[in-house]
């Protein structure tokens, strides 16, 4: 009998890192399904291509670092699946490959690979592509146009509601169309109902903590409600700002990335609130219409600060609690002492 020794505990919870990543993959698959429904098989091919690029890049980077590639590590697959969903369905394969390579080779591996990256790889890849190929990234095909898998695209590009909002107009879309994602926009980020279902699934599976996305959406909604765009009421402003663009998608899949967000609950809430306000500021005053990724990258750099601040507050609370427990025991002791003193 060959036995191994190890420190306690000797039983483990059933959830693994692979399971957490697998949940994200499962949720993203639904979005690919919706993309397939609206734009045809090109969306699926794009997804597979992006995953292949990210995974290949991950393997090569591991080889360069002389590390053994872990087959059970699905993080590169998740990055590869998130990236195309933030882009229009008509985007060329070259852009997807560039974004994927930037995400893995520049954002993830130089910092130490899975679990050590400071910035969110998918957000960084998207931001890089947005800076390099701005025009192509924000030209959306009409929502129900089936696109050819390869070859040139021919369509009359239509303005996305986020763009209309940015130039000062009011998008005229039916509420039902917004919920079902029947308007021009990033191929994974328009299906509001499916996104909400994904969020619920991830929260119920305990893959994502509820505090992070909800405080992020809360901050975005508060800014949208307090400072609505000209010509919009507070309620309409909240609805349009949250449902158009990448706010909802980013709040679920980019902010839900455990590596690049704070760990303690109160740090998470503070982080998400600040990220939401900055995202809304960028959206209002920035030069591009999708700038949540920039706000997220900016906040990623501050995660350590949020964590340490949270830890200091937690340390204070812990010491207060200890003192309270001690004082709870102490006065009773004092009472018995005085009693015995009077008796003596």
């Amino acid at each position, binding site marked *: 009998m060959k036995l191994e020794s190890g420190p306690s505990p*000797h039983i*483990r919870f059933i959830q*693994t890192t692979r399971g957490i990543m697998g949940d994200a993959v499962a949720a993203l698959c639904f979005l690919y399904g919706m993309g397939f429904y609206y734009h045809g098989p090109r969306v699926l091919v794009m997804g597979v291509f992006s995953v292949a690029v990210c995974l290949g890049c991950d393997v090569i980077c591991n080889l360069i670092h002389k590390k053994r590639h872990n087959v059970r590590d699905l993080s590169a697959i998740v990055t590869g699946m998130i990236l195309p969903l933030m882009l229009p369905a008509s985007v060329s394969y070259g852009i997807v490959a560039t974004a994927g390579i930037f995400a893995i080779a520049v954002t993830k591996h130089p910092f130490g690979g899975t679990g050590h990256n400071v910035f969110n790889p998918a957000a960084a890849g998207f931001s890089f592509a947005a800076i390099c190929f701005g025009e192509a990234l924000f030209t959306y095909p009409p929502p129900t146009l089936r696109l050819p898998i390869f070859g040139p695209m021919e369509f009359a590009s239509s303005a996305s509601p986020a763009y209309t909002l940015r130039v000062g107009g009011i998008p005229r879309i039916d509420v039902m169309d917004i919920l079902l994602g029947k308007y021009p926009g990033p191929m994974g980020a328009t299906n509001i109902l499916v996104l909400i279902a994904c969020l619920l699934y991830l929260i119920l599976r305990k893959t994502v903590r509820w505090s992070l996305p909800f405080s992020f959406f809360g901050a975005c909604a508060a800014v949208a409600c307090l400072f609505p765009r000209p010509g919009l009421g507070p309620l309409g402003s909240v609805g349009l700002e949250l449902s158009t663009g990448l706010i909802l998608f980013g709040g679920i899949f980019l902010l839900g990335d*455990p590596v690049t967000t704070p*760990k303690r609950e109160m740090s998470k809430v503070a982080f998400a609130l600040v990220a939401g306000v900055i995202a809304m500021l960028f959206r209002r005053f920035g030069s591009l219409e999708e700038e949540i990724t920039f706000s997220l990258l900016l906040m990623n750099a501050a995660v350590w600060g949020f964590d340490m601040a949270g830890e200091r507050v937690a340390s204070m609370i812990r010491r207060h609690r200890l003192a309270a427990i001690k004082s709870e025991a102490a006065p009773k002791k004092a009472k018995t002492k005085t009693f015995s003193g009077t008796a003596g």
Partner: protein
Amino acid sequence: MPMFHRGIVLAQHKEPAFSKPVIRFVNPQTDSYRLDRKIPAKSEAEAVIEIARRARIVDERDGRLLARKLEKALLKAYIVIADAVDDEPYVSSRVAMILQFPNELTDGIDLCCRVAGCERSAIMAYKMVTDIETRVPRRVNRVKVVRQRGGYPADRAERMRRLGPGQKLVVGAGALVHLARAVYDQKVQTTVFVTVAGDCVAGPVNLEVSLGMTVMQVLERCGLAQEPTRVVCGGSMTGMSVIDPDNTLITFTTRAILAFRENARDRHYTCIGCGHCEQVCPEGLNPMYIHRFVENSYYANLKPFDAHLCTGCGTCSYICPSRLELASSVLKAKEYAESWFIRREEEDDEA
């Protein structure tokens, strides 16, 4: 945002060992040891203490001699508590005493009450067990069974505080059974109650095993369904792993022998910083950062992390989806913190 977790709910796996009768698996040579009938003592309480000393009864809770504990509580404690809280999965050797040896258990409690000079007594059992077939009764021979609520780790200190201030005599249920046997049957403690369970054990059961038997003998008595990769002496959450079961002996504090088989492929993950460890820590610590600092020998930043508050319950390692050994890192940091930070605080106070 609850910072202090009230414990996590664990699947207890206490059946089928819990409901089966306790089986004797003893060495006939040592089992026949008896005490002298004549005990020189001034009072009844002192006689009980002397018997406990001569019978060499050890409290399995903390490994201390029962006689010493009784001496300390002599005519001082106001309540006697029998500790039968088995909050760790698979282990049921103490709570089984309530079902299997109720008379001896309550006799032991009565004897302790006489030593302490008090009338109040209680048996403490764990409430958060849902998968058992036999219910733990509310009263055993007129002794009330107090139920410990909450998940793992059971916050005994909090429950004790609710029982009121003053000195309490807390004794393990197994030691009380042995005390009753020593006083009424003149038996020396040569056995200990052990749960044999785990996913590799063919017939999980609670055994009464002679001290000094080997772990392998006990495992063979219950049969192995498959080859285990890890054999554990003690609880599943806090026990010690055994490499050489042929030469490891059963001692006074062995509560369980567990055999597990685990999938080695699940051990090649890196930390993804999910923060689950921080969410389940009953003391509100942040094991993930402590682990990262200890791994990189970066002890200078550990101060705000309060590693010295760790109770060693192991919930952080249990929940970790990357299967990291967080608990042992935190204990390492605790050792470091106790040796350095506390000394420094004392120096500051003196200055």
